[in-house]
């Protein structure tokens, strides 16, 4: 089964002046680890937003995790149940504790307070930050914050994780650590992982590298790129 099926996707902004996506066709298999690479303004983030139902296309069809996103009105439910987001700047809520940040997506589920806390602590344990559950995010290092963001992305057991430049603001050592953790979680939880990056070293870690330029996919990648030459 395919996690993503996109056909002839178009998206433009400012009354068609900016063509962000220009006839994109893409298929991603369930459990696959895919990276999307391209220069700034190439349309890779727009593509990721479409996959996460944060934005809607002008035309073309898009189906993610078995759900057609073109006409769906309950996109928030889709995001809550199927998608886990990781942003470049972690986007943790600053004035609530680390564990409360992880609980935020769980408010969309029918879980008791106790169940939420138990699950959040387990996820924090998975990313090695259980002891920092009660502190505020600003007391954490950049890498630790991104690990909390990863735990939050997994809060509702999504089938797809969408990561937008997850290591963009981190040094190379921390970046490697975060990527290793992300790949481990992708493998252990068998979730589809789609990373947007402009860093080829990061992109090469994926099963497949998709190259985007001027709103078009210029290369859908091949198996020769499986696993990186760099040590993560």
């Amino acid at each position, binding site marked *: 089964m395919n996690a993503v099926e996109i056909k002839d996707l178009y998206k433009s902004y400012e009354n068609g002046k900016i063509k962000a996506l220009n006839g994109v066709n893409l298929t991603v298999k369930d459990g696959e680890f895919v990276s999307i690479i391209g220069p700034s303004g190439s349309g890779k983030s727009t593509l990721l937003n479409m996959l996460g139902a944060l934005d809607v296309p002008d035309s073309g069809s898009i189906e993610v995790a078995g759900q057609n996103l073109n006409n769906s009105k309950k996109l928030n*439910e889709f995001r809550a149940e199927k998608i886990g987001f990781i942003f470049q700047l972690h986007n943790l*809520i600053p004035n609530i504790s680390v564990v409360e940040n992880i609980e935020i997506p769980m408010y969309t589920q029918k879980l008791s307070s106790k169940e939420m806390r138990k699950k959040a602590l387990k996820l924090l344990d998975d990313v090695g930050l259980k002891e920092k559950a009660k502190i505020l995010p600003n007391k954490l290092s950049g890498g630790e914050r991104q690990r909390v963001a990863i735990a939050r992305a997994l809060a509702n057991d999504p089938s797809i994780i969408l990561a937008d430049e997850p290591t963009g603001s981190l040094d190379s050592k921390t970046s490697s650590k975060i990527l290793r953790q992300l790949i481990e979680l992708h493998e252990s939880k068998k979730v589809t992982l789609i990373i947007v990056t402009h860093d080829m070293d990061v992109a090469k870690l994926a099963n497949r590298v998709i190259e985007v330029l001027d709103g078009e996919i210029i290369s859908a990648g091949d198996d020769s790129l499986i696993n990186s030459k760099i040590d993560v």
Partner: protein
Amino acid sequence: MSFLKFILKNPFRRKTSAFLAIVGIAIGIIVIVALGGITDGLVNTFEDTIHAGGADFQISGKETGDSAYGTNTIDASWTDKISNVSGVEEAYPIYVVLTSVGDDYMNTLIGINPDGTQLADISMKEGRLFENNANEVILGEIYADDNGYKIGDNIEIDSENFEVVGIFESGDSNMAGGVFTSISKVGELMDDEDSISNIYVKVNKGEDPQTVADRIDAQYGDNITTITSVMEMEQMADMLNMLQASTWAISLLAIVVGGLGIINTMLMSVFERTREIGVLKAVGWSNTKILTMIVGESLVITIVSAIIGSLIGFLACTLLGPQIGIEPLFTPKIFIQAFSIAIVVGIIGGLYPAIKAVRLPPTEALRYE
């Protein structure tokens, strides 16, 4: 943490903005509570002053005209008739005569029932009330001072000897200059025990005195006349209306200021949290949930403000009011009003920024710096 607990705790995570919002709204609530207490207190005092000891109006014989203390009499049986008129709570007779009192050849002697003193607008300063039908009098403090009488002194009235048993105070200078004894004793002195000069009438709570007076006039207008102090009542009504209108005007101002304050606070809070709202959308929160959160937070702030504002308004008025001659009156109505206003302001103040927030596309919210 439950969603409710999350909403309850959320506003206080941004301590400075929560503090400023609470101060702003609490000031509005203080104004509403304090003004309400002061106005109700003033109205209460005003009514006490206007209504002679609780009587709403008086009745006299037709020929006595407007003179409350005229010497013309009516039959004592009118008291019972007036008591039975719809809307009348109490009717008390009073017998006012001009006779020789002490060294004065002619002075006013007022006869009342010993249990009718409240209606006659007097309160004992010293001593006790006279016994029914006894040769005992109580003197108004002005009369006692002017004539040098004190308790235990004897005073000759209409050739009979009376003992001064009490001295009373009255806001009415006519009363304070008077000499009182029991109504039956006055009847006996006048040799006319079936007569009285006036009837004091108190109407049931919620009844309009003028309406009851009109009712009596319609029924018995050929024989008696009601003296409602129309001018006084109209002036009082005008003044009360003015007081209430002023309170509402100032309260409205307080509501507008408080309301704008909370809208501003919530708008600022929503702007500050634009990216956070983007995250909430990204993780799947519905618009309804985000709306509930923001309006809920707004309500938490306004209710806390209402509690603090009500307490400060109540304490400030209760402690400071008497020192500047104001006796505030706090009824549950004032607090219900303050809390209702706070809740309405909280909902409206939170709703506008909440709607603005949920309309923001998630991608735009996430890009917000």
